[in-house]
């Protein structure tokens, strides 16, 4: 009997890579993709190489090297990571691979933890690279060995695109076998493949264009694309990836019969689309993010001269923003059948009409439910946005930064937990990984007269902040660069980086010094401070503000979560009620462990306190002290 396990989608993906015989894995952390490399790095017995790379471009190139040597490789990243890796990716599509190579790009519909909701299927289309789009964690796992074989057969890299609800969904998953043998590294010097001189690139462009038809035909036969024509109805549904299971559930719930095309691999199977279109009069297309399938379906309908009504994102039947679910399919269905000209033309008779009514009813009920809930919502719920942890060193750094630079300054920032510093008034721009320092330089060169103090995390600095700092120094910007060195890649789940002296698998390695690195790039002033010491930190910020040129302040203090895991225990603090004047200075610090007792007009510190002691140092009345044992 096959083993069934309850696992996270990303753990199932890691398992799928193992079942596919992966030999080299690289990646850069990014929600929702991070747990794939985490899982593979944490395994004690490994017959593969795995690394956290410094950024996605580098990670992609590491995986390319492996695939060119004939072994199977995978690289993981979030959707925006592919923007960073787009340079090698676009040309890799021309050069192709020898060993199978899977580029895992996790999309984040609804921006649960991202700065945009771009659709990686567009990249696949752009580069002429096949793309796999799983609908469940089980299918995600099962697709990967197939994707490796497919990649090798057509000598092309492939994109594998889970979405948040696959990567961070959990499911019972039936495991497959692990391969017993894997090929050896064998790098052949195929210069016409691996050297993209114009002459070779032209030839490869011709090659990949001519390969598309064969790829599409093969995918039309793949188990991930399937067409079911239902007799007695002329209504069809096309669902891709995870959206297909939402559509299926809604149809089952309503008992509505519809011909169904499920798409799990691209380029989309035109043959199957044609067959569907020839059997229906109206089709509803349901896909996460962009109308990628829909555009193709419209092109096919036009080529064939078919007058099928096509509903989807382009006509507003389905929203182009945010993530989909069963309810949004019902709403879309309600819209389709509410259109006056459609029901008459649709056969399937009473059943379809009844189901449509059902869809309308369900959709309306959902809307009414929202309204009915408003009564309860009159309770006026307090918002509970994510916030920096109690004792987070970023809050302490931001506090001192604001004290010194004040309101009359500009604060570009970057991507990480510290973006939550928007609540502290010290995050005023966030564009992309590493963008803080370059945006700060641009502001300066544009003539901004106020002091500019930017902030960037340690991992983000190693990712793409380094070259921004080099540029700022080289081009003589006058800015303060704050490196929030919490000794880890925090937000994505505590992955190591080059500043920590250990690799993904926990092996000791060189601990790169941020201070020496900044000095080597030519920074005129570099100061390392402990952000838990506001006096020292403010002193450093004052000096940096006065410095003419690029001044770097490195605020070094481990992330409270990883410090706790490493066994660091600090004594928590408490308020001395006799001394507290109720001035609320400590509350303005914004620590979740500090609350105010309005009845007694005193502050109080809760069990959340992790003992950083910054509030005690801020208090003017000496009213906060360590809890005595």
């Amino acid at each position, binding site marked *: 009997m096959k083993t069934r396990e309850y696992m996270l989608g990303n753990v199932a993906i890691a398992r799928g890579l193992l079942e596919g015989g992966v030999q080299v894995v690289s990646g850069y952390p990014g929600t929702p993709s991070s747990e794939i490399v985490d899982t593979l790095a944490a395994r004690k017995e490994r017959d593969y190489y795995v690394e956290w790379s410094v950024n996605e471009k580098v990670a992609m190139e590491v995986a390319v090297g492996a695939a060119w040597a004939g072994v199977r490789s995978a690289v993981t990243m979030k959707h925006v990571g592919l923007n960073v890796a787009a340079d090698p990716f676009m040309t890799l599509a021309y050069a192709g691979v020898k060993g199978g190579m899977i580029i895992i790009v996790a999309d984040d519909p609804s921006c649960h933890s991202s700065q945009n909701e771009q659709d990686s299927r567009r990249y696949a289309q752009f580069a002429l690279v096949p793309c796999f789009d799983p609908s469940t964690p089980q299918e995600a796992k099962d697709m990967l060995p197939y994707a490796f074989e497919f990649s090798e057969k057509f000598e092309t890299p492939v994109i594998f695109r889970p979405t948040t609800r696959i990567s961070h969904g959990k499911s019972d998953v039936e495991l497959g076998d692990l391969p017993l043998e894997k090929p050896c590294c064998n790098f052949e010097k195929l210069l016409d493949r691996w050297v993209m001189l114009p002459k070779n690139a032209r030839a490869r462009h011709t090659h990949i264009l001519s390969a598309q038809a064969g790829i599409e035909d093969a995918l039309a036969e793949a188990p991930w694309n399937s067409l079911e024509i239902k007799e007695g109805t002329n209504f069809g549904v096309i669902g891709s990836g995870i959206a297909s299971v939402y559509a299926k559930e809604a149809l089952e719930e309503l008992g509505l019969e519809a011909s169904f095309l499920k798409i799990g691999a691209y380029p989309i199977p035109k043959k199957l689309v044609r067959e569907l279109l020839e059997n229906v009069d109206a089709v509803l297309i349901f896909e996460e993010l962009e109308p990628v399938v829909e555009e193709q379906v419209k092109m096919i309908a036009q080529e064939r001269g078919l007058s099928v009504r096509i509903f989807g994102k382009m006509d507003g039947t389905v929203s182009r923003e945010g993530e989909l679910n069963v309810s949004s399919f019902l709403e879309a269905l309600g819209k389709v059948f509410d259109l006056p000209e459609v029901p008459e033309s649709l056969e399937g008779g009473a059943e379809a009409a009844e189901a449509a009514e059902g869809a309308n009813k369900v959709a309306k009920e959902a809307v009414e439910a929202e309204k009915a809930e408003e009564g309860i919502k009159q309770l006026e719920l307090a*918002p509970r946005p994510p916030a920096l942890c109690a004792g987070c060193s970023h809050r302490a750094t931001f506090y001192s930064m604001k004290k010194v630079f004040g309101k009359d300054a500009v604060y570009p920032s970057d991507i990480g937990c510290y973006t939550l510093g928007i609540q502290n008034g010290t995050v005023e721009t966030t564009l992309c990984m590493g963008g803080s320092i370059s945006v700060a330089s641009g502001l300066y060169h544009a003539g901004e007269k106020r002091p500019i103090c930017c902030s960037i995390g340690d991992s983000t600095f190693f990712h793409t902040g380094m070259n921004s700092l080099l540029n700022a120094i080289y081009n003589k910007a006058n800015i303060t660069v704050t490196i929030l060195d919490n000794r880890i890649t925090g937000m994505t789940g505590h992955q190591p980086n080059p500043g920590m002296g250990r690799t993904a698998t926990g092996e000791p390695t060189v601990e790169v010094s941020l201070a020496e690195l900044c000095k080597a790039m030519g920074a005129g002033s570099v100061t390392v401070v402990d952000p838990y010491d506001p006096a020292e930190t403010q002193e450093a910020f004052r000096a940096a503000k006065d410095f003419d040129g690029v001044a770097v302040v490195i605020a070094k203090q481990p992330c409270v979560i990883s410090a706790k895991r490493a066994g660091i225990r600090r004594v928590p603090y408490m308020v001395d009620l006799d001394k507290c004047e109720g001035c609320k200075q400590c509350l303005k610090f914004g620590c979740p462990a500090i609350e105010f007792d309005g009845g007694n007009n005193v502050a109080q510190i809760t069990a959340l306190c992790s003992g950083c002691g910054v509030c005690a140092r801020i208090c003017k009345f000496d009213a906060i002290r360590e809890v005595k044992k």
Partner: protein
Amino acid sequence: MSEKMSENMAEDAAGKQKQKQKQKQKFDLLITGVGGQGAILASDIIGKAAVSAGLSIRAAETHGMAQRGGSVENHIRIGTDLGSMIPKKGADLLLALEPMEAVRYLNYLKDGGIIIVNTETIVPVTVSSGMAKYPEVSKILEALEKKYEVKAFNADEVATEAGNRLAMNVVMVGAVSNYLPIPVEALLESVKGLVPPKTIGINVKAFELGREKVKSIL
């Protein structure tokens, strides 16, 4: 009637029976709370137990920036092999680890559905900094009771009674165990397998106290 036909009919009936059985075992549970309260562990205990009981299961969690002390929602769907997201008004039961977080996600709960709610509050920074007010817990419960079947108790206190306040999430799993289509033994085994080995005793007690607590609330 030919033999073949009657055979088919018998198979059909068996199939329908099976389908019915499957329907019966379908259960959609929404766990809500605050990042750090252990909603993911609670969901894992139920998920692993469902698998060991031979049921298919889907779950969806909150990771990344959204979980940093923010409001979190975990969807758990027992007996489904489709998506992990509960449709609006689809949840049979709402397990709220914090009272305000019970109200925030009500649009997922069926009319007349069950709410098990921990009455211990966690004050968000928006309230402690004076930007917003925390509604009175009694008013929250009053509003919920008008429309739903509510089982409210202080699970933090029950966990403390079991030996550690941090076992609150396991108290809540014990509480919901009365309603799940999963054998209680499977849930207990799952608790033992997922909590730190040193804390098994406390957590088993927390589970049992939670289970009894809900039974005692009329």
